[in-house]
């Protein structure tokens, strides 16, 4: 039967043991793609989905229409935030290996997406992150201790022990609760933006999904509702080439860029170099301005690479070349921004190393504080009655009874 099969099965360009091959990635030169007015029609902006908006060239020099108006200080701050995110990831990845937390997911290699976009948006804009957007939480001043305590499910956990690691939220920071279910937050962002429009407010919403998650229904719902009501929302697809073990071709990325997914609905799409912080910032600013002007939604595809394993439960050497990231033509977002800053004379190797050292200490200090509030295995522990709160606004009688039953049972045991 199979010998005659005509079913097309997408195949990644390289498997373990083979040489990485990114020839499938269509690239544009830095500065090559022009910047339309934010009032451009969807048709006028259509070329943005087929090309790749890039600002920094191989020497780190900014090129073209999309150079954002960022001061050296802002760029250094962006670099700091990316490095901090990476250091935070390092620390928690190790904590998982040491059995202090049950699970972890790094954003290694994708830091420019969260930091570049977060910087381009306003504090009143509401963000609906996915699990690899820790950079947004760090950027919006969620304390590292709070983030760590969430991962530790300890007595200071913002989720009160109810969520796996990385499922953060930050109410004051306008960061929505991360869900373990893929893409479910996408229609929430659209709904939030609809409400903002209904109320006549200026705030916009933004959300993120991975390349793989675009196959889910919620992706379609979100695009449809955003298009129908022209909701002020930025919908991001972080195309890091992989969805656990399947490459982006299994989500339909073989023929067209993900940036083109909204075209059939008239949603402009921008394909951007996701490892180029300046480009990410610039396209986000464009989309945000457009949304605030009443121009409706924009879909942004960030072309990047998942530098690490999918999660601490994953071993990517089983399905992709070990050195694939090293061969990724868009490099490492940290190194690229560093090069740009060094080139412009605002940064040096020494400063860079010193900053890394300092961030390491900051993170370590935060970690020490965080574990003082308890770990998965060591004291202080959350009061078990918390398990029964927040299912409803008020605890119903049945849950009160169950809580009592449990406490009584624990009493007889100890």
């Amino acid at each position: 039967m199979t010998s005659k099969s005509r079913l097309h099965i997408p195949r990644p360009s390289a498997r373990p043991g083979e040489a990485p091959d990114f020839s499938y990635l269509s690239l544009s030169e830095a500065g090559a793609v022009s910047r339309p007015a934010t009032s451009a029609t969807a048709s006028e902006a259509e070329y943005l989905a087929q090309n790749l908006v890039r600002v920094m060239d191989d020497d780190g020099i900014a090129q073209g229409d999309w150079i954002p108006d960022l001061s050296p200080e802002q760029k250094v701050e962006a670099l700091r935030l990316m490095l901090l995110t990476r250091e935070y990831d390092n620390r928690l990845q190790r904590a998982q290996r040491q059995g202090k937390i049950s699970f972890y997911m790094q954003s290694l290699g994708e830091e420019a997406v969260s930091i570049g976009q977060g910087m381009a948006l306003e504090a009143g804009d509401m963000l609906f992150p996915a699990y690899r957007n820790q950079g947004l939480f760090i950027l919006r001043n969620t304390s590292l201790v709070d983030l760590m305590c969430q991962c530790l499910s300890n007595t200071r956990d913002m989720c009160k022990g109810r969520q796996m690691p990385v499922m953060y939220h930050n109410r004051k920071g306008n960061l929505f609760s991360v869900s373990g279910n893929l893409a479910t937050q996408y229609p929430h962002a659209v709904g939030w933006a609809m409400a903002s429009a209904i109320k006549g407010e200026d705030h916009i919403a933004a959300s993120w999904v991975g390349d793989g998650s675009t196959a889910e229904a919620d992706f379609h719902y979100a695009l449809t509702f955003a298009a129908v009501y022209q909701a002020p929302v930025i919908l991001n697809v972080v195309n890091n080439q992989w969805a656990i073990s399947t490459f982006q071709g299994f989500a339909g990325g073989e023929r067209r860029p993900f940036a083109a997914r909204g075209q059939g609905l008239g949603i402009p799409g921008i394909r951007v170099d996701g490892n180029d912080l300046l480009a990410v910032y610039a396209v986000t600013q464009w989309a945000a301005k457009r949304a605030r002007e009443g121009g409706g939604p924009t879909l942004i595809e960030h072309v990047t690479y998942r530098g690490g394993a999918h999660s601490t439960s994953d071993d990517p050497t089983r399905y992709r070349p070990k050195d694939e990231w090293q061969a990724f033509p868009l490099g490492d977002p940290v190194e690229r921004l560093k090069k740009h800053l060094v080139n412009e004379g605002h940064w040096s190797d020494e400063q860079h190393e010193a900053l890394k050292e300092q961030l390491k200490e900051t993170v370590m200090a935060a970690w020490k504080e965080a574990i003082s509030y308890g770990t998965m295995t060591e004291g202080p522990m959350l009061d078990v009655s918390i398990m029964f709160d927040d299912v409803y606004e008020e605890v119903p009688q049945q849950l009160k009874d169950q809580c009592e039953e449990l406490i009584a049972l624990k009493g007889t045991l100890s």
Partner: protein
Amino acid sequence: MSQMNMIQAINSALDVVMEKDPTVIILGEDVGYFGGVFRCTDGLQAKYGEHRVIDAPIAEGGIIGSAIGIGVNGLRPVAEIQFADYIYPGLDQIISELARLRYRSGGEYFSPVTIRAPCGGGIRGGQTHSQSPEALFTHLSGVKTVMPSSPYDAKGLLISAIESNDPVIFFEPKRIYNGPFDGDPNKPATPWSKHPAGEVPDGYYSIPLGEAAVVEEGDELSIITYGTMVHVAQAAVRNAGVKADIIDVRTLVPLDVETLTRSVKKTGRCLIAHEASRFSGYGAELSATIQEECFWHLEAPIERVAGWETPYPHAFEWDYFPGQDRILAGIRSIMEAV
């Protein structure tokens, strides 16, 4: 006070709440200009504008998903699902998101969405316009589930549902939209105007969620039911000449265990009736709970009268529907048990 059928009562509930609270908005298929296929939102768009009564794309998951986001942004969305049979594309958003948002965010986020959906059979609607899927929702932690059985209750409960900061699934037994159907399809339909619960206050009032109603009192038997079956049970009891407590559960979650058990402890006999299929239906939970709470008072097995375990069959509607004859058979078997 006015005479209202259940559609008018629901319309009035929406009107009253929208008037009172400018953050209430309605979203659903055909709910806007047209006023809904059952006309429950008739006139509301004209009155409150296109931005508060919003026609939606045909995407139940998108309606519920965007309603969650709307709710997070400070508005209070009432989503209509055109038929309960079409709620399933939205189940993931209900189960994984709506029900758990408050819990998983440590109480910091919630979305006060109310989802209205006409449910139940008896209208020759075949399998896709007759289902009673309430059991599925009652197994979820974090949503409340409601089903009224009269215009008066529908308005009062719907107002409470919309005002609740918890998500509520509000099922409307469409067979009794226009009158208290007693299970006999061969009789002319009675209108609500002939029924005391068709008298409905014009303005604001509410009925708390979580309270069952004893609609008929007796000491020989407890019949526990909800929705259309309340009226079928009442008719059956009249014909059986038995003195029964008839309890309308009204709020399926959270369940008013107290009212149920008080009755069964008194009567020692209990029949549970609903339209949905029996196996793993909501009646199973009612039966299990009552058995646990009232075991020592039971004088006969608790029985369930429910839909057969098949999809809802168009031509066999009246053989499938648990009508008076089946309730009577159930009553007989319970009363004769020794």
